C-alpha cells in the first residue's frame, strides 16, 4: 500500500526538511517502522518505552485520530494520508506536579502486579494499600495492610515493624503509591517499591482480591473509638459483631460483663439465668432496676442491654443450666463467660467447654476478693486441672451466704469482659494458665501460674470425654443449678 505521510515542522529535521514522504505499509505500526528504517529518529519521537504512541503526539489517518480506530494496528489502504500531529499544549500555570511525578518515577522502583503476587510468596513481600477506606472497602488484595495515605506517616510504625522488609505500596492507579513510597523511605523503610498501575491494573489482570463486609455508617459512628485503634479497626469491629458470647448468669459478674460486651458491639449475647430480680441483687447487679424486681433476670437484662445497644442480638434462656441442656445451649456460642456462684455449675460449664473446646472465661468473688482466669482445654488447663474435687460446701459459701462488696463483681466481671474481647480479637496474651487475683482491701493484683494436670480426667491428651455427671451429688450440695453471685 502506498501511503503519504505528512511530517510536521518540528520533525522535518528527520526527513531532511521534506514535509511529506511516501512509503509502503499495511498498518500504522508498520509505517512507523518503515519511517524509522528510512529516516531514523521517528520511533523515539512517536513511541514511548513500551512501544505505545506517546502522549505528545497524535496520528491522524485521513482526518481521523487513530486512537479512535485500532491505534497503531489501524490498517492502511492505498493512497491513504497519514498526518503526524504534534500535540500542542501549555499554558500560564506552572507544572510542578508533572515534574515531581517524573522525579518520583525515576527514584521509586515500580513493580508489575503479577510480580507482586509472585514475590509475596517467594520473599514474603508485605503489600500496603494506601487508598482511602471507601476505596479499600470496595475490594482489596487479601492480607494487604491498609494504611490510608492521609495517616501513613502516623500509623506506619505501628503497622510496619520491620524496616528491612520488602514492601510494595499500591493505590488505585499507581500515583499516590509513589508519594506514599517516598514517605516510607523517608521514615527509614529500606526496600519500598510501588505497584505500577495500582489496584486497577491488579483487577484488570484478573488477579485475586476480596471484597470485605463493611460497617454501616451508623456502626462507624457508634464504634468510632474502636475504629481509631489500629489493632482493632474495622476488621476487629466486624469480628466483635460476629462474635457469639454466652453469659452463664445475669447477676453480679454477668451484669457488668454483659453490659460492656454489649456496648463494645459483641453481636450476639446469650444469657442463661432462671432467677428473678430480687431487691438484694440491686446492690451490684447493674443490668436490673428497682421497677423490675420480681421479673425474670434474663428479660430485665435484655431490656437494659438493648437500650444501650439496639444493634446487637440478645438471646435469653430462662432455664436452669443442666447436663441435659448444656450442649444445646453452648452449641451456638464461641465463648462462655462463667458468672455462676456455685460449684455444680462451674464443673458443668467446665466439662461442656472441654467437650466443645470452647474458652471458659471464669470469674469468682468472695467479700473483698476476686479471681479471674480463662480455662481453655487444648490451650491450657481446665477447671478440673485446678480443682479435681470440689471443696466442702462449708468452705465455699455463695454471696447470699457470705456477702460481697457490691463493686467487687464489677471489677471482676469487667476483667472477664476484657479477656473475652481479647479472645475475640485474637489480641494480647489471654489469661490462659494464669489466675489473676484481686484483693480490694490491699488494692493488690497478683498472678498465679496454673498448670495443666497431665492426668486430668477430662482434658488430658487423647482422653475420651467421660460424659456429664450428677453435679449436685458430686458437689454434695443441695443447690439450684444456676444461681448467680
Amino acid at each position: 500500500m502506498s501511503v503519504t505521510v505528512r511530517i510536521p515542522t518540528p520533525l522535518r529535521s528527520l526527513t531532511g526538511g521534506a514535509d511529506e514522504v511516501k512509503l509502503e505499509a499495511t498498518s500504522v505500526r508498520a509505517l512507523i517502522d518503515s519511517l524509522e528504517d528510512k529516516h531514523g529518529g521517528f520511533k523515539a519521537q512517536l513511541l514511548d518505552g513500551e512501544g505505545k504512541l506517546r502522549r505528545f503526539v497524535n496520528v491522524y489517518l485521513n482526518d481521523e485520530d487513530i486512537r479512535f480506530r485500532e491505534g497503531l494496528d489501524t490498517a492502511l489502504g492505498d493512497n491513504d494520508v497519514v498526518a503526524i500531529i504534534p500535540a500542542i499544549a501549555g499554558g500560564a500555570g506552572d507544572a510542578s506536579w508533572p515534574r515531581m511525578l517524573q522525579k518520583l518515577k525515576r527514584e521509586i522502583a515500580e513493580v508489575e502486579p503479577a510480580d507482586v503476587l509472585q514475590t509475596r510468596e517467594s520473599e514474603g513481600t508485605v503489600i500496603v494499600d494506601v487508598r482511602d477506606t471507601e476505596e479499600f472497602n470496595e475490594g482489596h488484595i487479601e492480607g494487604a495492610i491498609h494504611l490510608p495515605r492521609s495517616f501513613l506517616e502516623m500509623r506506619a510504625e505501628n503497622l510496619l515493624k520491620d524496616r528491612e522488609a520488602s514492601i510494595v505500596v499500591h493505590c488505585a492507579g499507581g500515583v499516590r503509591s509513589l508519594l506514599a513510597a517516598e514517605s516510607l523511605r523517608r521514615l527509614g523503610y529500606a526496600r519500598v517499591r510501588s505497584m505500577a498501575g495500582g489496584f486497577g491494573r491488579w483487577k484488570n489482570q484478573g488477579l485475586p482480591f476480596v471484597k470485605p463486609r463493611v460497617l454501616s455508617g451508623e456502626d462507624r459512628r457508634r464504634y468510632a473509638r474502636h475504629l481509631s485503634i489500629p489493632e482493632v479497626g474495622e476488621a476487629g469491629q466486624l469480628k466483635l459483631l460476629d462474635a457469639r458470647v454466652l453469659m452463664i448468669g445475669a447477676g453480679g459478674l454477668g451484669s457488668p460483663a454483659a453490659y460492656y460486651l454489649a456496648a463494645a458491639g459483641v453481636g450476639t449475647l446469650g444469657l442463661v439465668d432462671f432467677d428473678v430480680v430480687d431487691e438484694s441483687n440491686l446492690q451490684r447487679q447493674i443490668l436490673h432496676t428497682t421497677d423490675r424486681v420480681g421479673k425474670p433476670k434474663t428479660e430485665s437484662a435484655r431490656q437494659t442491654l438493648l437500650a444501650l445497644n439496639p444493634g446487637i442480638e440478645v438471646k435469653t434462656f430462662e432455664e436452669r443450666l443442666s447436663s441435659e441442656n448444656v450442649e444445646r445451649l453452648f452449641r451456638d456460642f464461641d465463648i462462655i463467660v462463667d458468672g455462676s456462684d456455685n460449684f455444680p455449675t462451674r464443673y458443668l460449664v467446665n466439662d461442656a467447654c472441654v467437650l466443645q473446646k470452647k474458652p471458659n472465661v471464669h470469674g469468682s468473688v468472695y467479700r473483698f476478693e476476686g479471681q479471674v482466669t480463662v480455662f481453655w482445654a487444648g490451650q491450657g488447663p481446665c477447671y478440673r486441672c485446678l480443682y479435681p474435687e470440689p471443696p466442702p460446701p462449708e468452705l465455699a459459701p455463695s454471696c447470699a451466704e457470705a456477702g460481697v462488696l457490691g463493686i467487687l463483681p464489677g471489677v471482676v466481671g469487667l476483667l472477664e469482659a476484657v479477656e473475652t474481647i481479647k479472645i475475640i480479637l485474637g489480641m494480647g496474651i489471654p489469661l490462659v494458665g494464669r489466675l489473676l487475683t484481686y484483693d480490694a482491701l490491699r488494692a493488690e493484683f497478683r498472678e498465679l501460674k496454673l498448670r495443666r494436670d497431665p492426668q486430668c480426667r477430662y482434658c488430658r491428651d487423647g482422653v475420651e470425654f467421660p460424659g456429664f455427671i450428677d453435679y449436685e451429688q458430686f458437689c454434695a450440695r443441695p443447690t439450684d443449678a444456676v444461681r448467680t453471685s
Partner: protein
Amino acid sequence: MGRALHLGTEAGSSIRSHAERDYPRECCGLMVGRRQEGAWKVEYVRPARNLNTDRPNDRYLLDPADFVHADREARGRGLDIVGIYHSHPDHPARPSDTDLENAWAALAYLIVGVKDGRVHEWRAWEYDGEHFDERSVDGAPLE
C-alpha cells in the same frame, strides 16, 4: 541573533481579538506562513479550540483536529504551520514550566499577555530542545 517573527497587522489584530475575547480563559491558535532564512513570515492565523476543560484559565490543549484542518488548508496554499500562539491571562508573556514540558522545536511560539481583559504584551519564543530563547516580533505594533 535568531529568527524573527513577522506577524503583520492583520494576523496581529486577529490574535489580539481572540485573546481578549476568550479572557479570562486561555486562547490558542496556529500561525500559518513561510519559514524563511532568519524569519517566520506569518500570512494568516487560524484560531483553534482549547480542549483543556479542567483548567482553561491557565492551561491549553490545542484541538488536534484544528491542527489537521489548518495543516491541509495551508498545504493547499503552498504554506505551512509555522507557529503557535496562546495567551497567558493575567500572567507575563514568558514560557511557563508547562509550556516547556510540551514544547516542540522549530515552531515559533507567540505568548500573549492579557491583563484585565486587554492584551498588553506579546513575545515570541523558540524552543531549542532544552529551553526557550526569545525572538523579536515585528510587523504588528501593539499600540
